[in-house]
């Protein structure tokens, strides 16, 4: 039997769990009722989801959003004769609350009209990166307040859907540049837009080339391989990774096919059904984004991307490394390594994946 030991000191408690003893329960206690309690609490609070669509104009972004959420989120923009093309990249956000079976979802969609439309597209990703970082900054400021709110409103971008134009060749330099920069800040899901202009074989070839391009340039799109937690996740996610990028078609008109009412695009040579797996991969995208991985997207944004941003922000305002000058909330925390003295080493500029990788290795 343990001799009486003192309560654990605060300085020794780190992320590791204390020594636990497995116990057999001899009867039903009712612990699993906590799941129902969780559900009730979640349904009462409601969910939030922020999605950003990026791509050149005319690729069907607004239509895609409308199809995904089966509602008129956006009016599909059509360039009028008198409307000038925007000279600068303007981000537009719209928020709606949608409800289904008692589950309330506050959905924010951010559109990026004008992306890649100029003649000189240099640094066109900067406004987007700025916007994403601004959301992180807002959340960070709320989090470090002394009196903070019970539930911090979450405006961070959870997922960025990147529309690749269906050239059929490979990724363009603009795409590569953009994806490289963004995959470190936010979860990126690339899709082949307007896939009805490619045949099935062309699609496969295009997809292969895009996957190779992504690998060569070291772009990790969602679902990232390094965040697979266990074997089930790995299997599930590798299946998804094989099919990325999805070839999608968006439509918000309904037509009658074989007596059923389906969403589709009507052309002279046939009707392309959006929800038919044989025609396009829209169901896969929808399942990924909404039905199976929505919570996961939010978790990765919160646990990885936001933490990286936070590390970067809290480090850059201190030129000196974290040493005894760090705010001492308790006497001599054991986890802080002894400093070598005041040196002017700047903190690491961007941590990247390494934060999560290390924790993975530790666990």
């Amino acid at each position, binding site marked *: *039997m*343990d001799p*009486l030991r003192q*309560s*654990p000191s605060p300085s020794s*408690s780190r992320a590791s*769990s*204390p020594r*636990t*003893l*497995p*116990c057999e*329960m*001899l009867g039903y*206690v*009712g*612990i699993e009722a*906590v*799941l129902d309690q*969780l*559900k*009730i*609490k*979640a349904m009462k609070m409601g*969910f939030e989801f922020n999605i950003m669509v990026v791509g050149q104009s005319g690729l069907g972004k607004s239509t895609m959003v409308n199809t*995904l*959420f*089966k509602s008129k989120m956006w009016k599909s923009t059509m360039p009028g004769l008198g409307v000038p093309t925007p000279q*600068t*990249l*303007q981000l*537009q*956000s719209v*928020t709606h*609350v*949608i*409800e*289904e*079976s008692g589950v309330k*979802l506050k959905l924010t969609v951010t559109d990026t009209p004008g992306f890649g439309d100029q003649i000189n597209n240099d640094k066109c990703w*900067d*406004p987007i990166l700025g916007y994403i970082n601004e959301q992180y900054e807002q959340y960070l400021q709320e989090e*470090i*307040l*002394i*009196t903070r709110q019970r539930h911090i409103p979450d405006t961070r971008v959870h997922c960025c859907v990147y529309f690749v134009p269906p050239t059929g060749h490979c990724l363009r330099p603009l795409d590569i540049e953009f994806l490289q920069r963004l995959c470190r800040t936010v979860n990126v899901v690339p899709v082949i837009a307007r896939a009805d202009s490619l045949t099935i074989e062309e699609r496969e070839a295009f997809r292969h080339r895009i996957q190779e391009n992504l690998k060569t340039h070291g772009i990790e799109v969602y679902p990232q391989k390094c965040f697979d*937690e266990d074997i089930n996740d790995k299997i599930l996610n590798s299946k998804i990774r094989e099919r990325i990028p999805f070839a999608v078609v968006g439509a918000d008109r309904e037509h009658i096919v074989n007596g059923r009412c389906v969403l589709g695009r009507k052309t002279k040579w046939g009707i392309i059904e959006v929800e038919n797996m044989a025609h396009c991969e829209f169901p896969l995208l*929808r*399942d990924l984004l909404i039905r*199976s991985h*929505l919570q996961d997207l939010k978790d990765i944004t919160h*646990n990885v991307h936001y*933490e990286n941003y936070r590390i970067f922000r809290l480090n850059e305002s201190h030129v000196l490394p974290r040493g*005894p*000058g760090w*705010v001492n*909330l*308790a006497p001599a925390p054991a986890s802080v390594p002894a400093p070598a003295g*005041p040196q002017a080493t700047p903190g690491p500029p961007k941590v990247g994946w390494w934060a999560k990788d290390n924790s993975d290795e530790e*666990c």
Partner: protein
Amino acid sequence: MAATDIARQAGEGCRTVPLAGHVGFDSLPDQLVNQSISQGFCFNILCVGETGLGKSTLMDTLFNTKFEGEPATHTQPGVQLQSNTYDLQESNVGLKLTIVSTVGFGDQINKEDSYKPIVEFIDAQFEAYLQEELKIRRLLHNYHDSRIHACLYFIAPTGHSLKSLDLVTMKKLDSKVNIIPIIAKSDAISKSELTKFKIKITSELVSNGVQIYQFPTDDELVAEINGTMNAHLPFAVIGSTEELKIGNKMVKARQYPWGTVQVENEAHCDFVKLREMLIRVNMEDLREQTHSRHYELYRRCKLEEMGFKDTDPDSKPFSLQETYEAKRNEFLGELQKKEEEMRQMFVQRVKEKEAELKEAEKELHEKFDRLKKLHQDEKKKLEDKKKSLDDEVSAFKQRKTAAELLQSQGSQAGGSQTLKRDKEKKKQDALSRLTWYFKWKCLVLT
């Protein structure tokens, strides 16, 4: 660089949009639950009560298992907290349960400081969480939450009222943790006494301003049951791990000569109510209250104590980082000063030591000179002596040759042999005396 112009369509704001079909996000709660299951849950209970009130037995009964442990003695010198963590698994839900028990509470003669270890322990858990949250590189989603979610306060079944120790302790704890008072070993009180006891306890708690945990009544699903349960506080419980056969079932009960008390019989005690409220209905709410109310209060007090503010007197928002910076610079300045001081002291000490060493060196030099002089004097004396000896030896040699010469002349003459012999004898005597003298001198000189 292109300016960012984020236009949020103000007119639409957050309007509800009707859906034209099944989208599928009603699986969101399930996704959330799956993620929580894979992470696992943790729940920490603190049992405060005097020795012998049945705390460990009640825990065993609540969770239907036998946690290891020995009953404590009454001879503890002070209050200590004993913490044990267990891994429970029920269907697919894993729970890390931590049970913290006070050992030696109420056993001392002077109980003024009994509540202090408890308060310190609770604060220590908040502190650990706060530290983790304020780190630059933190692992909050993997962090084992050790903050106390529920405190079961065991009241002794006297039947009269609360003890002053109980009142004082509960008053100190009510702003730090969710307190659920329970009447322990309630099979010692009869039904009528019990109602009076409960009323007395609640009125005493109210009049002393102790805030105990109220089960939440804002959600329609559980409002009703929680409301009725709130009226039954404090719960009168009995704990037992022994099973007896009653009717045709095995039930947990305590057997007395006058009857059997069944633990899970609602007419006998409130154990079932406690289990319902603590585990099956409000576990999540207890955790949330701990995090959003008690922990936030602690955090706010702690950060204000450290001198951080949200806004300074001019109502300009302070950045936490600026305050960090200022404090950091201050601290570094202090450090520099200290370093200078130490350096000065070091230089001074070195100087002193040098002076000392110089003195010693001088002394040594003098000593050396003296010795050298002595040595030289001795050497000179010896040389003088050697010289005189040499002179004598040469004088002797001269005389020896002269004597030999004389002797050879005398042997030729032959006449005065006796005389010669006498002379020789005398000479030989003188010679031997001289050799003796010479030897003695040599001996003296060496």
